[in-house]
């Protein structure tokens, strides 16, 4: 823990020092009637290319430098440092042109998606660990089906064995839809246990009208509802861990392309001397 804290302190210090260095250079150049935007622009472009190379490094492990975790650390702190370089590059004012506005918006979206991803990758695993067991994301649909089939089987067997349909009616009216359909989009954005609690409460209410065999079956249903909810929670949270990369990586290449175009235009339209 101590080494983690000291590593974070070291990396943060280095990053802040680098950011301060860039801001200081821009001021130094500005007071000398220079155009620091060219230097900060090239620096920013280089940093973005380096950040994008992290994805290449994952695809080409043979050219790797240090471990993936090491790369990730450098990627995170470099990404954070780009904020200061970017702000210095645009001279702390919002761009007004279409190209520059779009470029700034894409950069901001990429940066924010990275921040969101960083936050999720630091918080979601902790939340996942609190759930009963670990599930592989790709297997969750199959496990959901398994839960649905199992609950259906339990209810049918009980109905057949007891000849009473109280549990069956409750299953068909309240549980079948829940177990068959995927959760709504709101749950994917903000998972909660509210529905699970309500269903368990309703099942508890029904229990007093059940016979002993049905009560035994309902106990299995309790477990299956919890499992289904765990699966849904795992799916939603793991989806978060995967979906932010769609935005983060997806925006990276348009960002690089527009940045290169912007750099070329800056040279082509530069207000130079005769």
């Amino acid at each position, binding site marked *: 823990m101590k080494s983690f804290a000291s590593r974070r302190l070291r990396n943060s210090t280095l990053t802040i020092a680098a950011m301060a260095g860039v801001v200081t250079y821009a001021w130094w150049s*500005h*007071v*000398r*009637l220079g155009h620091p935007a060219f230097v900060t622009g090239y620096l920013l472009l280089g940093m973005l290319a380096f950040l994008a190379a992290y994805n290449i490094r994952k695809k080409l492990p043979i050219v790797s430098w240090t471990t993936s975790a090491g790369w990730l650390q450098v990627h995170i702190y470099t990404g954070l440092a780009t904020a200061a370089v970017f702000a210095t590059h645009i001279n702390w004012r919002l*761009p*007004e*042109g*279409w*190209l*520059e506005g779009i470029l700034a918006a894409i950069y901001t979206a990429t940066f924010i998606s990275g921040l969101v991803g960083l936050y999720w990758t630091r918080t979601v695993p902790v939340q996942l660990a609190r759930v009963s067991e670990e599930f*592989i*994301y*790709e*297997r969750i*649909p*199959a*496990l959901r*089906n*398994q839960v649905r089939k199992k609950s259906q089987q339990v209810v049918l067997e009980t109905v057949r064995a007891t000849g009473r349909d109280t549990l069956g009616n409750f299953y068909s009216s309240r549980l079948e839809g829940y177990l068959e359909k995927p959760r709504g989009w709101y749950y994917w954005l903000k998972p909660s246990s509210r529905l699970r609690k309500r269903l368990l409460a309703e099942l508890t209410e029904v229990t007093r009208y059940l016979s002993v065999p049905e009560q035994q079956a309902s106990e299995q249903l309790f477990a299956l509802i919890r499992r289904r909810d765990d699966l849904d929670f795992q799916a939603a949270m793991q989806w978060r861990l*995967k979906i932010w*990369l*769609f935005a983060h*990586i*997806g*925006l*990276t*290449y*348009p960002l690089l*392309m*527009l940045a290169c*175009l912007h750099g*070329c*235009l800056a*040279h*082509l*339209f*530069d*207000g*130079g*001397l*005769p």
Partner: protein
Amino acid sequence: MREPLKPELEDTYDRPNQAWMCGLTDDGPPCPLGPTAHGHCSHAVACHPVREGDRWICNRSTLRGGICEAGPTPDGECCVHYSCTPERSLRSQRGRFVWALALATLGGLCMILSSNWRNEFLAPGPLSVHHAQLVTRGGDQTQRCASCHAAGNQTLFQWLSHPLEPQLAEPTQSSLCIECHQKEFPAATALLAHGIDQKLLTTTHEVELTSRKVDPRGEFACSTCHREHHGANHDLTFMSNTACQACHAQQFQSFATDHPEFDRWPNERRTRIAFDHAAHQAKHFPAEKQEFACQMCHRQSAEGFQQTLGYEVSCAKCHDSDLETSWQAGVPFVSLPIIDAEILGDAGHDVGNWPEQATGDFDGPLPAITKFLLLENPTAAKGIQLLGVDFDFFDIDPDDPTHLTAAASVISALQKYLKDLAAQGHKAISIRLEKILGRAVNDQELAAIVAHLPAEDMTAMGETWFATAESTPPDTTANEKERIDGGGWIRDDQIFALRYQPSGHADPWLTAWIDLLAEATRGPHSKLAESLLLEIMKPTAPGMCGSCHSVDRNANGGLEVYWFAQQAPSPGVRFTLFSHAPHTMQPELADCTACHKISEAAAMMETYQNQTPNNFAAGFHAMTKQDCASCHKPGAAGDSCTQCHQYHALKK
């Protein structure tokens, strides 16, 4: 080998990094082979039955559920077929999404860059209104970027060729700026520091490059300070204090603490009109029972510059009588001196026919204007130089042959001048002036200096004076002066003189001759002309011009007569700007004396006896920085450099 507890689920080996996944994954155990690399179902079977005798036996692995109940078909085929529609893995979907976005961006850029919307898309922001209204004129809006950028109307291929063909970057943006702004800023020096010649810069600035952030001897692109594309209302002329201090060695943190004292500013030179405020306030105005108020003589121009009202408004009431007295006898234009023709003849100088009444002992002056015109004759010029510009014939030493020779040369030139006047008229004057000044005299100038000099006067001077030397000319001056109140000529045939009667202050004839004399101080007869000018500008000379109008030596060594007070900032290099307008709006500054305090002890009029305008005693106490710093501080009136100083110092 240990078998899994849940073989139907846990025997699978997930490969989320592969592009395709089995479509059966959601419902149960996926196909053991999985989809092909191109996403096709491999249509696998659960086992390959084994034939034992005439029976086919299922050999499905226990990992996949063991021997199935249905068993193989009669022809030995497995009864469990895996068939699905393979699905892309999330990783593959992400890859396609990334590619799609990248391609869409590339395609979008290609479309935009080849469309008419290219300029709008590439522009880093709206132009300021001053430039926007210019470049948006005309029909072809696609070319407007080219007004300021060479690359503005180039094709994508030309853009790509820039590294190989540097001439494609021509003309540069600064050149295009100057193309439009050459009226305000001379192209030769527009990009130099302060837009002025470097030699001039080094004379006004102490160049200490070691302590400067930027070498001010180089050229600066216009865009160094003027940043466009920041919106319609962006102030293009804004210049920060930081930008000023990039070149200036002396660093300022604030006006109040670091700015040097004003020294002699705003009185960097004496006023063009010699006016003793202290004497007028203390003596002359009270004597005339007049109120001494600044507004009686000064007013503020629309630009905020303090202007001085003219003579007629401010001075005429008291000084007109002085002027009339000074030219009571008129301004001599021509007069014949009394000469001793006998002595001159004995010395071998035949003066020819000279009026009897003007013959005797040497006596009489020559008018300054006559001397000026005689400079055309090199011999006469030498004679005048020998005798002294202010010579009088009374000073001729009859025993000195050189004096006699000089006097004879002057007399001879005078005779020729008068004969030419009679024969050629006004042309005799213009020809002489052209030789003296080295340039042609235009019609307006000639009209001013001859002031309708009548032909009969010229004939009389050239012919009658000399032809009727033995007779007594009639007295024609008795009533003549009263008849030419509006200015004109008075010929006195008794004393052989022609005088000009000025019409009043700023008489065009008198001022024209003074200006020509001043111009001649820059010519080959500079010394003689200078003496003649100073003679005619003496405070006691007719017209008393020199009483108020200063004579300054200018940069090229000649003299210059200032007829007017400064009514607007002078063209040339000017670093400091001041407008009275925003200051006099303040109640406590409405009274001029709040800043301009008259110095009663200053001997300011004495300084007009020389011709050096910068060597003077100001009639007002020097202003101090503290007078301004009480308001000009951050948070109040502000103390930025450009509030009082301008970068483009050269004004045409």
